């Protein structure tokens, strides 16, 4: 654990100025991930700017949907009536993650920025391209049961651990950020990055930018959305594979579809090709199987995680069937 300074921000622009002025400064919100990583010496910020006093907690209706403040806790969002009614997948995803104590502390902004749970990233005894660029990736020859099957590179096969972000990906969420250079909006699909040659950069957020809120556009498919998470124990475990699905089904035909997966890639994996297959098709087992095939078409297994490909396929079929209210008799 490195020595660091701590400052409590009282206003938003002051907080942004503070972080912009120090390359080694980081915003501190719930701290449920950052503090752990600091204790394990995985991250060594020289300065923490505590933003918990900023007025970024509101969950409010907008003309087009819902705006969730970046400091709203995961618990607040999960239990919010508007969220549950209009974006059930988000509530389900949040409740599928962590534990009640952690959800009470963790914030929406922080959840988007949580780091991978790759064992090799979390332990400084190992080399890791994400932690120490260029040091190598021991996960590729090592134990990679929890690692990526989609979008990985030969530098990094880590996966993004968030459940919430997978739901947001299926809801066409937009992340509102503010930095020294002003405000901008980042669609969720562009927020996280694939590892490529720079696995140490998780997101497209600039160092001085602060997430202030997340916008959720209302839609018929958002109201009919679910989350399915498959894990090694019943609670308090990261997803081996998770799926967020949103469908607008009219008279057995799919009007609009959104499909995103967690636990399979370096970012919440939006399955655009599968969505194309679903859109306009009959809501039946055949359609769902075709969509599932499209999801894993380019999947590349590692030594210990080939099971994820079949698991993702079955999870997609199961969840799409559930959301559409169609009995498929199983994917196997």
């Amino acid at each position, binding site marked *: 654990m490195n020595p660091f300074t701590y400052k409590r921000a009282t206003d938003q622009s002051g907080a942004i100025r503070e972080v912009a002025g120090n390359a080694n400064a980081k915003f501190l919100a719930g701290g449920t991930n950052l503090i752990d990583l600091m204790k394990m010496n995985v991250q060594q910020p020289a300065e923490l700017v505590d933003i918990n006093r900023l007025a970024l907690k509101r969950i409010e209706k907008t003309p087009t949907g819902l705006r969730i403040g970046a400091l709203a806790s995961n618990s607040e969002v999960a239990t919010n009536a508007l969220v549950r009614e209009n974006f059930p997948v988000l509530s389900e995803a949040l409740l599928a993650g962590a534990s009640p104590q952690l959800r009470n502390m963790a914030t929406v902004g922080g959840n988007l920025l949580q780091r991978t749970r790759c064992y090799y990233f979390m332990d400084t005894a190992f080399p890791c391209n994400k932690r120490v660029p260029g040091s190598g990736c021991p996960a590729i020859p*090592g134990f990679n049961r929890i690692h990526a099957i989609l979008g990985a590179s030969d530098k990094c096969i880590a996966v993004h651990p968030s459940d919430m972000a997978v739901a947001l990906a299926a809801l066409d969420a937009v992340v509102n950020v503010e930095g020294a250079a002003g405000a901008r909006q980042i669609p969720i699909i562009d927020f996280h990055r694939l590892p490529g040659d720079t696995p140490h950069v998780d997101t497209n957020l600039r160092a001085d930018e602060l997430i202030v809120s997340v916008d959720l556009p209302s839609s018929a498919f958002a109201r009919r959305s679910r989350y399915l998470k498959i894990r090694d124990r019943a609670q308090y475990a990261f997803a081996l594979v998770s799926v967020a699905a949103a469908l607008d089904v009219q008279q057995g035909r799919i009007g609009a579809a959104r499909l995103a997966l967690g636990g399979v890639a370096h970012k919440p994996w939006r399955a655009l090709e599968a969505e194309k297959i679903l859109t306009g098709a009959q809501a039946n087992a055949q359609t769902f199987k075709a969509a599932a095939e499209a999801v894993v078409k380019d999947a590349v297994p590692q030594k210990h995680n080939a099971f994820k490909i079949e698991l993702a396929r079955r999870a997609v079929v199961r969840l799409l069937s559930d959301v559409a209210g169609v009995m498929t008799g*199983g994917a196997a």
Partner: protein
Amino acid sequence: MSVSQQSKTTNQTKSVVGRPLDRVDGRLKVTGGARFAAEWPLENMAHAVLLSSTIANGRIKSFDTSAAEKAPGVLHVMTHENAPRLKPVFTNPAEGDAAGRRVPLQSPVVYYAGQYIAMVVAETLEQAKHAAELIRVTYDEQPPAADLDKERGKAYVPKQKVAGKPADSLRGDVDAGLRAADARVDETYRTPTEHHNPMEPHATIAAWDGDKITVYDATQYTYGVRHSVAMSFGIPEENVHVVCKFTGGAFGCKGTVWAHVPLAAAAARQVRRPVKLVTMRQQMFANMGHRAETEQHVTLGAKRDGHLTAIIHEGISHTSVYDEYVEPFSKPTHMLYACDNFKASQRLVALNVGTPTFMRAPGETSGMFALESALDELAYKLNLDPIQLRLINHADTDPDEKLPWSTKLLKESYRVGAETFGWSRRKPQPASMREGHYLVGMGMATAVYPVNHFPSSARVTIRQDGSAVAESSTHDLGTGTYTILTQIACETLGLPIERVEVIIGDTNLPKAMVSGGSSTAMSVGTSVQGAARAALAKLVDAAHADQRSPLYGASADQIVARDGRLALKSDTTKSETFTDILTRAGMKEVEGSYDTQFNDREKKFSSHAFGAHFAEVRVDRDFGEVRITRFAGVFDIGRALNMKTAESQMRGGIIMGLGMALMEETVLDANLGIIVNRDLAEYHVPVHADVPMIDIVLLENFDEPLMNELQAVVNAYAEVRARGGRAALATVVSVVGSAYRRPGARMLVTEDGQTVGAISGGCLERDAVEHARQVITSDTACVVEYDTRGDEDIVWGLGLGCNGVVRVLLESLHEGSGGARALQFVADCLRVRKSGVIATVIDAGRAINQERGAADQESGADRSTKIGARLPFDERDDEHASSAPGGLFVDALSPFDESGARIREDARVALTSGRAMTRVYEAGAGRTEIFFDVICRPRPLVVFGAEHDAAPLIRLAQTLGWHVTVVDTRARRATRERFASADSVVLCRAEDVTARFTVTRDTVAVVMTHSYLDDVELLRALLPSPACYVGILGPKQRTEKLLAQARAEGSWFTDAELARLHSPVGIDIGAETPEEIALSVVAEIKAACDGRGAGFLRDRNAPIHDERAATTAPPEFEIGAHAAARERATSVACGSSS
């Protein structure tokens, strides 16, 4: 159980031991008042942090500690280059170099990743941690041995034994066994490395004072820490003081002294300040042992009928490259099933990991998984039920030790478990049970664990203020040691819970061994009991010697401790407080000590706890996610000292087993040899959502009759006989006037004066004991008469308002004597709950003797009388006498043929009337007085349902002397704890009632399950049964619905059967509360069974008491009718008892 304890449980219904007492330390734990090792607030404390190796195999080339040494707050940086030389600690004499290699920071060699290679001591924890991260290390790295599969070729024979057995064991001829087999199973099973992960991390605070040191340590073994620290530093053990008041979980990993302990001590010596060292969770994965990975191969051979012809259990497990530990997975296979041909073989593979160690049930956990899985495979192959296969191969004696079991309720565990769990609903065909997306499976396995005990000592002090303290160096790992030791001390000392303090976890206290292997309750509990008795004996001595004490002159065996007082057993009004005794004696306190030793070399039994586990598992058929939905565990663990903590232990073990079976797995990176999932986020243990409802049944609680006095006497005599002791039986045979006890009251007196049962309210016992000891010595029988009328009241010091003459038969008991036969008959009656009459000669005149044959002359004994001779009659066979072999009584009356017939007739009268009586028979010059004692069959009441409203009914029925059985289909409710007064508590499904019970003509059944479906089943079973009364709770409409449903399911009831149905149950007394309802129900049963109308007696135009009794038992034969005319002699007749 000794005789004295038995009398205690009989007399004191509120036994402290066994009660589900809340943890006495519970409040401290939840309020933060319980001080764990890392929480001792010492002055001027420095903090140490250990640096772990990042390679798994090699040597340290160099350190750069310069930045660390300059970092703020740093007091010292220790590496192998500057560490003090610590001496090796030998834990067994044979380990040689291994002991040396265990000593930390002594060489640059790295054996495993995570090994401590440096230590930083600083003013604060954060400073130490930061500085440790600044140390730069260069290694000469070698590829590690980190993969069991790759290293298996180097497997070797362990140097040490495997749980006390040779690594290669053979019994019989396994090849021949396999050749004789009709079916064979060959399976390989793998279990992963697993970690203990107690909540509390390992932590040590070390504080030196000159060459003396105090160590606060999180441990299972304070004396072990003391020994180890003394050895490391070459100082006498007395110089090391170890304190551990609470241990926050251990599961075996705190039974060994790991490297951080001497390092904390070395740091404290170096900086000359107290040093605190708390290990990080991540470090615990590398440095505190673990359950080793295993690969096991099990071969079973069996006949078509399921009998095992061969068992082979072999395989490998890993150890470290520098030390040896064998995970003894073949251990339970040696003894679990009956099989003549058995072979076990274990090998070790050395890996670059820390040394494994014992973890919760070492051997059983991994080994039983393999053995029991193989048995299931065999059951499937043979098309046998898994339980059936296990029953077929049940070992009636220990096949390995060739000894009988001390106790083994394994078959009962299977049966109760199957019923509790609903095993009969299982379908053995794979994937035949489905629910939605889930495949549902049911499985079971045998549980076994040896009884372990270690020598241990304790001290108990009774203080002048009437409180007491029990002390031992033992530990509370969260298991409840504080609580059960408190209970044991309280029960022994007769003190309430709040007056007894238990102090443990300190080497200044009497020595206890490691708290491991489930040994503490038995070992330390015995010591505390012994010490409490020793302290009490000193208190008794003080009272005994003091003329001012009401207990003056009383010996220890005449005194009982109760409610903070010592009292005379025979007259508890003579008592005084502990405080008074000590104050008068001028003593501040009395102290007793006890060293428990176990003689295992001459053991005559093989002692194990047995049990059976039942699980219902759901597997998502698409995803393979496994979830446990139901679990039941039935265990035969002996006596549970505290129901709550005992059940908690069982439940915790099951949860841990569930974790180990489904999710726990420590993964080593096969290339680098570093554990990848070394925290609780990635090493998965069960969370609440993974744990289903777990039904625990402890068999000591099951179907165990609450002992009434008669049963206690019978049991006590059986025990006296078993240990070859001697005893006398005192029986009240007649009472004239008023007396506390009625004829038939019995008391057993042992040769050392211990008593079970009573013959009076406490006034006659003392004298009767003296007489009893005389008859034991002379092996005779006699009748003693106590006259408590008039002036003699003073002699006996009664003052109880009794005013009568009591005659007591005293007889020495031995094999075949009249008394022994009577007790045997009583035991038979109690066992099968039948009525009976015993005719006893209590006086015989000389005339009989003259008619005697040659047999008496041969014996040379004075056969002037046959006092104590018996003739038993039971309800179904009043001709019992004729079949009694060589009946003494028949001999005695042989000259009086017509008397024999009269005696039988009178016995029948006594049996019918249910009343004891005495009669005199005269023939010629002979005269014989006979006492007819009736053993009444208690009214059998069966209460179906175990909701709260059953309790008052049971209590009331019990008060009336009825035999009460509680039957419930829900295991969690029908526990002995909830229905302490019931004679038996039975778990049974409604549809199995007729199979499980013998319902007779006098059975009374009350149905109050509150379950519609259960009630239907019960009505279907009970109405056609011979039961005389069937009551059912609930309104008439509900009962009609039940009957309609029963008829719809094919039942058909006669009018006579329906006439037995009482619904709504009870008489009309306006009952509302459960207690009132109980009164109403019991009254109805009594009235219905006695053929009475249950109205107001004032409206009755007949005598209150039934005439039947008067006619069948004429007044002249009533109790004591003859004795009224007797003289006031004390001893009236004596003679040989056989």
